[in-house]
């Protein structure tokens, strides 16, 4: 074996090590979050954590149910706003707009992803919250405000992944449908959307993950009261805001309880990630078999 060939083998080995960095980081993060967060869950019981209604860290009561419900409520609200808007944009851009218009609109929409989450939160506080307070009543800082802001923030995720999956539909599908004399909209509705379905579902699941995981924007507009929201106008605290609000001064068991909050958040996110990966993999698998 020449020196060059031996070098090549070393390089391959080194690159393999680098390639596992992402996996290694994922494992290390999992280990540390669970190591800090699970002991206290064992100590007080999972049931108390998941179903307890009271969060008084100084009195050792760590009920996370209001935050779990809060996270689900704002995420659900975000989907109600973000999914129709996002899918409409994706469908318009792939099926209806001219190539030139698409070349202008797509980067414009991608800009939405670049705007920092604190800026979204700030816009929510100075415009949306007062608007809700004066027109609909309540404190303004609410599930509704958080849902609207999150709905906007998940748009880029939904739009870009849906566009990718619509564009990945083989051209022959569209041509076959048009050849049958359908209109563009009929083709979109009956052929393109069903064919791109798994990618569209993956985009929604990933959007859900973004909404559940968003922190700073939600803290600024949601009001952060620890109670199960009674209406869209009541204030709410999410899992993420619970961590970020109290991390600055928490210590001892309080801090561990915040890591336990992180554990629950982490599990929810990993489930969503797995669903998203599984749906898009099925799409790939199907693509390979089709002619």
């Amino acid at each position, binding site marked *: 074996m020449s020196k*060059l*060939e031996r*070098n090549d083998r070393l390089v391959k080995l*080194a*690159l*393999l090590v*680098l*390639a596992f960095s*992402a*996996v290694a*980081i*994922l494992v*290390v*993060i999992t280990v*540390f*979050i669970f190591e*800090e967060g699970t002991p206290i869950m064992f100590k007080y019981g999972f049931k108390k954590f998941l179903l307890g209604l009271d969060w008084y860290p100084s009195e050792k009561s760590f009920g996370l149910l209001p935050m779990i419900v809060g996270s689900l409520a704002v995420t659900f609200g975000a989907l109600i706003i973000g999914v129709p*808007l996002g899918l*409409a*944009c994706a469908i*318009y851009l792939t099926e*209806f707009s001219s190539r030139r218009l698409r070349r202008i*609109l797509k*980067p*414009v*929409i991608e800009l*939405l992803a*670049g*705007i*920092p*989450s*604190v*800026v979204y*939160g*700030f*816009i929510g506080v100075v415009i949306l919250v007062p608007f809700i307070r004066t027109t609909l009543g309540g404190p303004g800082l609410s599930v509704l405000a958080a849902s609207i802001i999150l709905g*906007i923030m998940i748009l880029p995720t939904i739009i870009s992944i849906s566009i990718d999956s619509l564009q990945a539909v083989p051209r022959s599908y569209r041509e076959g449908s048009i050849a049958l004399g*359908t*209109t*563009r*909209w*009929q083709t979109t509705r009956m052929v393109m959307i069903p064919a791109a379905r798994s990618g569209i579902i993956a985009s929604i699941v*990933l959007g859900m993950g973004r909404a559940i*995981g968003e*922190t*700073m924007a939600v803290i*600024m507009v949601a009001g952060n009261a620890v109670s199960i929201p009674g209406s869209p106008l009541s204030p709410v605290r999410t899992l*993420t805001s619970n*961590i*970020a609000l109290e991390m*600055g001064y928490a210590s001892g068991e309080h801090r561990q309880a*915040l*890591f336990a909050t*992180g554990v629950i*958040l*982490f599990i929810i*996110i*990993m489930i969503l990630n797995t669903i*998203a*990966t599984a749906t898009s993999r099925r799409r790939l698998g199907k693509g390979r078999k089709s002619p």
Partner: protein
Amino acid sequence: MNPRREQQIAAAFLGFFVLITVFILLFIIVFILRKGLPVLGWSFLAKNPVDMGRGGGIFSTIIGTLVLTLAAIIIATPLGVGTAIYLTEYTWENRVTRIIRFGAECLAGIPSIIFGLFGFILFVTKLGFGWSILSGSLTLSFMLLPTIIRTSEEAIRSVPGSFREVSFSLGSTKWQMVTRVVLPSAVPGIVTGIILSVGRAIGETAAVIFTAGSALRLPTSLFSSSRTMAVHFYILAREGISLDNAYGTAAVLIIAILIINILTYYLMNKYIRKYS
């Protein structure tokens, strides 16, 4: 209903939704710039914050942002590009690559607050780096890694196969082929990915505030705590310290993001034209 009529209605509805989306984006940008630009000036950019940010400018937070971002990029780029080279040039799709890809995808989905918790417990407390640029940039680099892997992989894959064949036919080893032929051609794409991650790093708050801290002094070493613009903006706005300075900081953030997006758009178009 007449299909043609149905199509017109559908197109109108979809177009309306697109208009709403574009309007929201323009509204945010114009609103921040209109309120923030009057505050901006040489002294705002070049002076340090005074009295917790009530007065003075944001110079130290600009430096904090730049140093933190630069360090994170320096850490994440070799890891990301190395991963991309391995995935594209040194293996084929098998169980190992599936695990690597799954890891990267999961990492991309993890919320920034979890990165913040992790960075806090590992770098700040266990390894004893404290709230520092080192802790912050390590944490941030982990967040950026998936983006860099994905964009670098796309860039390397789009280098035509014939380039590789020519290189092999001249008797080069694989590594020579990668470093002298593939990487130079893929550089614009890789750089685009890096610029994109710079944009993410600049706007990041949750992961940074618990790892780099929020000291307003100019950082003197990798171990000094530092406040980024996004964190500064968050604290100004949330604690109601100074709305004017908050708008000014937000305007600087928005301008930076605009420049970054225009730059990536330009690079991407140039790059696409080169190979198609």
